[in-house]
């Protein structure tokens, strides 16, 4: 089985054998290594490589997946080699409408701009409250508010589009 794992913008080609427990040989970008794999429970894995022990934990958040290793957190995505979406996505990053997404679940407590308003970069567009903290969502760039996608009092999920700026 071959998987393409992207971490920090770089994709690594990883080949795994059919059986995934015990001592197995796999390759990372063509380089072979012997790994002893033991899945302790779903999401917790022990890897032993040349006697060195690593505890890897799968951290599944609402918007991303990550591996916890050595006290660090590595957010990853799986690249599907059949599509070039990720590369194309990076290309049209410069212009066009930009959504403002909720960074965490919360409630909309104030809306500071209306559709059609001209806004400056870093201007406050709306305010979300979660866990006794109010957080102002700011415009990522100077432009015009295309739409406000929520109303005061709405409960929003992490990653939900709150407004669009163009």
């Amino acid at each position: 089985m071959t998987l393409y794992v992207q971490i920090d913008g770089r994709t690594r080609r990883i080949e795994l054998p059919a059986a995934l427990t015990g001592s197995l040989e796999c390759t990372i970008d063509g380089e072979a290594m012997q790994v002893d794999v033991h899945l302790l429970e779903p999401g917790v894995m022990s890897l032993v490589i040349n006697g060195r022990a690593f505890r890897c934990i799968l951290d599944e958040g609402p918007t991303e997946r990550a591996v916890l290793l050595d006290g660090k957190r590595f957010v990853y995505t799986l690249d599907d080699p059949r599509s070039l979406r990720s590369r194309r996505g990076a290309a049209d990053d410069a212009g066009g409408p930009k959504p403002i997404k909720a960074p965490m679940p919360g409630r909309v407590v104030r809306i500071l701009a209306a559709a059609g308003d001209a806004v400056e970069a870093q201007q406050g567009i709306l305010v979300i409250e979660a866990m006794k903290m109010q957080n102002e969502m700011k415009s990522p760039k100077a432009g015009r508010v295309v739409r406000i996608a929520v109303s005061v009092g709405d409960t929003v999920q992490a990653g939900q589009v709150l407004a669009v700026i163009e």
Partner: protein
Amino acid sequence: MLLRPAWRCLRSNRIVFCNPGEVSHAGDLFFLNSMHDHHISRAGYNRTVSKSSQSAAKPNAAVAVRPIRKVLIANRGEIALRIIRACREKGIATVAVYSDADRAALHVLHADETYRLGPAPASESYLRGDLILDIARKTGTDAIHPGYGFLSENAAFAEACEAAKIIFIGPPASAMRMLGSKTKARQAADAAGMPRVPGSVKGLASIEEAHTVAREIGYPVMLKAAAGGGGKGMRAIAAESEMAEAFTSASSEAERSFGSGEVYLEKLILQPRHIEVQLIADHHGHCLYLGERECSVQRRHQKVIEEAPSAVVGEDLRRRMGEAAVTLALAAGYTNAGTIEFLVDAEQNFYFLEMNTRLQVEHPVTELVTGLDLVHLQLLVAEGHALPITQKDVHLRGHAIECRIYAEDPDNNFFPSPGLITKLIQPGGPGLREDCAVYEGWRVPLDYDPMLSKLIAYAPTREMAIDRMLRALDEYVIGGIATNINFFRRILTDADFRAARIDTGYLDRLLAKPKTAATEISADTVNLAALAAALFEATAAPVASAQPADTLESEWKVTARKESLRA
């Protein structure tokens, strides 16, 4: 290594679930009562102090002792659980209350009885003193422990408890009124001759008055909520031009958080350390200081790390601060646990800041270095007993550090991150304590404070306690939501923190610095993470493992492969 959620270990037959309306005819409540109806002697407590030096304070025969057999905990989260545990240790029955967001919260699962208050917002649940008192009456509760936050510093609630003949585990309402309001406490501190920071003694009536007072004491100044705590309604103001906006936002934040928009002004002391003295007072006129805690590591006036003792407080300063704190508490007729907060400047002058008329979040560091249990003492004092020790029995030993583990993302402007905890692996081993109320599979609600847990390390010296904490943080995993665990590594490895060169502005300065090269990650580690990700994805793929026979077969394949590799 892998801890199971604590509720799985519960004796489920001891939990009674029903609505408040059903309480009056729930006969088994009395059964629970009688189960805990055994006498608890004070002698049990005394194990924590050495017999040779221990000498109980003289009781006043005029003070009636009223045994507590059942306690209602008017709180949630780790503090509710911490109080339930102390009650259980003393053979006292417990009553939990909860909002709709907390039906599956750990405090609900640990209590003997538990009752719904109302919808998730605190104003409709944990702040509803009337509902809480109703439940207390119906369950035959002797005493209410308010924890911290919510109703803990609400004098009207303490009075309502007194009127209902239910013991409020805290100071009398009169002392709370005098010391709990920051403005009144400053007047009391002046009367007791305690040094304090220059500023307005009364709440500010208007923005104009704020301008006048600020000009008198000179900028920079600090606006604070009279009813507040935890940094809410607080603003530092460098110049007059910032006053109007700060005044409006501080008082509206205070109004939202505490139901009172009253704010006052203080001169801003540059680079102060936040050092506070823990007090415990009984109804017999005894008040003890239990050493200090340093809480200088703060962000937005919220404590992040607390430790005991402070690295800069010696015997003499400790005694002077402690005696000043005791004088003020006795003058106010204070009883039970309380904390007096001071600012300490570079010349070791201390200034009265405020009094917290409750048990504090960071009380465990004091417990570890004094060997005392503050909640046990609170219960003892609330029953009317004299303190079982005197000041000369209080000794500090070793060093304790507490990290407040929050559901927030330090890499994303410390945004709160409520949500599902998909993985929880808690640290263990020597010298650790964790006061925690989350479990794997629990969804952290967005309605309350983002604190998940308090991790406390205890060791003979400060340096060893820091290293022990670092080791514990390495073991600690909370998956599914962002936490500040990694952020603590950055603080605890910082040279200034390790040298105790800290003040209340320390953390902002650290955050302004670019991350050091030490946090750079080797390519090998990233490769390994990618490999682990691939293995997780491959093993989790549901299509690949549709037939259960596959697993067994692959085991055989693996074994066969191993054999062939050996050969």
